[in-house]
């Protein structure tokens, strides 16, 4: 584990999960792999914390779960974005961008 890995800020895990699932339905392990790969292994996610987040999002109705067969024919629980999940993702994405822009501005000018 290199020192360049950073912990995820509070509340961003939900956003990352939603974004990952926006491409296609996936099971938990694939979600974690995907986030690691895309973020060039910079973001460090405690793999265990992924599942409570997935279950919470499911309860909120933003994603829904279905058991299906995986690529190597094993049973796996697939998560899929719902309509209200897609809306939530858009809202969270734009909020995130605003936050980044604002923080960036402060850092540059202050």
């Amino acid at each position, binding site marked *: 584990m290199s020192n360049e890995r950073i912990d995820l800020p509070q509340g961003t895990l939900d956003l990352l999960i939603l974004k990952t699932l926006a491409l296609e339905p996936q*099971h*938990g*392990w694939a979600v*974690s792999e995907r986030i690691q790969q895309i973020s060039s292994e910079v973001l460090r996610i*405690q*793999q*265990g*914390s992924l*599942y*409570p*987040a997935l*279950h*919470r999002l*499911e*309860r*909120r*109705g933003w994603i829904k779960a279905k*058991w299906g067969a995986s690529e190597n024919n*094993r*049973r*796996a*629980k697939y998560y899929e974005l719902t309509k209200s999940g897609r809306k939530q993702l858009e809202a969270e994405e734009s909020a995130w961008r605003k936050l980044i822009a604002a923080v960036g501005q402060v850092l540059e000018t202050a």
Partner: protein
Amino acid sequence: MLSDLLYRLRALSRRKSMEAELDEELRAHFERQVEKYIQSGLTREEAARRARLEFGGLEQVKEECRDSWGVTLIQALLRDVRYGLRQLRRTPGFTAVAVVTLALGIGGNVAVFSLLDTVLLRPLPYLHPDRLYMFFPVEAESQRAMVASSYPNFQDWHEQSHAFEAMAGYHGESLSLTGTAEPERLDGLRSTPGLFALLGILPLLGREFSPSDDPHVVLLTYELWRRRFGGNAAIIGKSIHLEGRTYSVLGVLPPHFHFPPSRWGRAPELFVPVIPNPDRGWHYLRVIGRLAPDITEQQAGTEMNGIAARLAQAYPDTNRDQGIALDQLSQYVVSGVRETMWVLLGAVAFVLLIACTNVANLLLSQGATREREIAIRTAVGATRSRLLRQLLTESLLLAGMGGALGVALAYWTLPLMASALPQHTSFFTRVHDAGFKLNSTVFTFAVLLSVLSCALFGLLPAWRTTKPARGSGASVRTGRIRSVLIGLEVALSFVLLAGAGLMMKSLVRLLGVDVGFRTERLLTMDVSLAGEKYSSAENQAAFFGQVLQRLESLPSVLSVGATVDLPLTRSWTRDSFEIPGPNPRQGLAAYHAVSPDYFRTMGIPLLSGRELLTADSAGTPLVGVVNRSLAQKYWPNENPVGKTIIATRAVEQSTSKGTRVEFKQQELEIVGVVGDVRQLGLDAPPDPELFMPYTQWASSEMSLVLRTASDPSSLIPVAKKEIWRVDPDQPVTDIRTMDELVSTEAAGRRFVLQLIGAFAAIALVLAAVGIYGVVSYGTRQRTHEIGIRMALGARGQQILWLVAGQNAKWLLIGITTGVASALALTRLLTAYLYAVRPTDPLTFVAVSLLLLAVAMLAVYIPARRATKVDPMVALRYE
């Protein structure tokens, strides 16, 4: 939001499979991760180690997932409930007392609320009943509303008003049904066409009146149709005999139809058209209307008063200064009982408060004995909020059980309450019409009330009990709270007892009123003559003459009399008379046609002059007897015997336009003065009355009174038979003994007294139980101290005074507060009191003594037990 809830419920109900799925999901993740590392060249052990490290604690992840399901709170609650139930089972005595106490409080409230629901909340059984309005002509000057209007006025209102989409006039009338089996006097209603359409009621069979109908048509209620005509549908178009004439049956109304939902009990059983009276001053029609859509009550009122003003201008003789008041039918129906309802609800709310106070006290003692348990749980890390939740869950369980038992109690009391309902009030009619049972509104009320009581009795004890212990000071303070609660309980009970005491005294006074005649062994019955053969005064008088003669000869009849208006029946006809002379004076009196033996039969004393005689007949000069009130009012310092007055007689005359009533002036001589009777009711002071021989002022409707030697009700069959020997077609109705009449008269007050009395009794018992509980707990706590005192030589009596004295302070404070509150609150009872002021000192003293005696007994028993303690045992206590 909804999907969230569904998810939680599923998680709760499918707990096992959720767990299994979670297991499988996490294991699958773990295996994939291990495989990934094996592929990258690690050994199986090394791969598993790394995967475990990256994953974090498995059990912790699972717990976090369960948290995500949103069921942990509910599960904790279920755990609390299970724990609470175990706790309550461990102290069965406490639980039983608390549950029964709450059941009495909640049950009483539920019972009274279901009465309120039936009488006030449930809509009247007509179409959009909130748009139905009653019309009342108002005299602008006195602002006094009249109940009825005249036919021409009604017609003008009907034609000129646009705010009402329909309007109808009606008035009650008794009609004799003959020609089938026993003749029967029925309550009927005369109405203008369109009444049923206005109410939104379609006849079950046939149709309702139309303006083109012959006046001799009739609509039957479903119940009358079944009872008298066997429910035969072929009745439509057939003729029946009413008042000796044939009426053709136009329709049958649907089952359970009642109109009007009157305040005076009996609903009409048949409906016939109104006979128009062209006299604009003859007020006999009640008017009802249905407000048009989008019109407000205010707009309608403005329009109607505009119409009234135009009529006042056009017909100043009859309509001058006359306005129109509107009252929503649903409001009109319950006016008079609404206040009673609130008084009852207030009284029963006191019972609940007392019950809650008691249970709060019980919980406080419980809390003290559970100090150790609380301390241990705090020590192992339970937070205060966690403990509060636990204690409140227990309270909620108690409230729930109390509420359930309370609903059962209410279910059991409803029939009792229904049988006690006073007739001739909308209590009776509404309950009779709408049925009296527990419905969902009542259940909702019961649930809300249980939760409310839980808050009332549970919050304070839970707060105190979970307060971190700070030496013994806390328990002293708890002791004070308990004393304050006892004081409160005594004060609340006092108010209820004072109310019940005042009402009881009123009822005793009312039933003890001198009615002016002897009520025992008097049988009364009404006979009204109908048909062509009784259209003449001679025939009417002849019929009653024969009936009186026949009844007189019955073996156990001592004497027989007849009168137009029986005392205590609230019926009379008042009219004016003139006292002639150089300065003629006008007077007002109730007119009664009576038989000569009426006074003797009733036991009304003759004060001066002579009674009416059989010799006073149609052919002899007109005579009259007055009562003492009339004599004193119009001849305060003289004997009226021998004076002449000019009386008014109303004569009905049928014309082509309808029935017109004309007034004739007739001179009569006063020949005697008799004692006053309570004509209008037990509580109504006597008014001037004038009695004339029925042979001179014949009437088609008279009440017969029989003074009997034996039980009056045993004479009913023979008396009826004798009357029917004279004419088998004349119905005999309202057969009652005078004692029954007196008891009906007091029924309204008795009903309120019964309920408030029951509440007061429950309050007294609860207060006694509460005081007993607090004192016995207090002395038990002080066993050690008492032991020391006794060891040092204190005698039993001193200990007794010590314990009693400490508690007496709070009892006295309670009673004082009770007196103050009662002084403020018993005013609300004024309407139910008779000859008793709401602040009657004697009642207040009696109630204080009763309450003090019961309270001191509740103090004495445990205090006495404390003195019996063996000092050695006491010193070793704890």
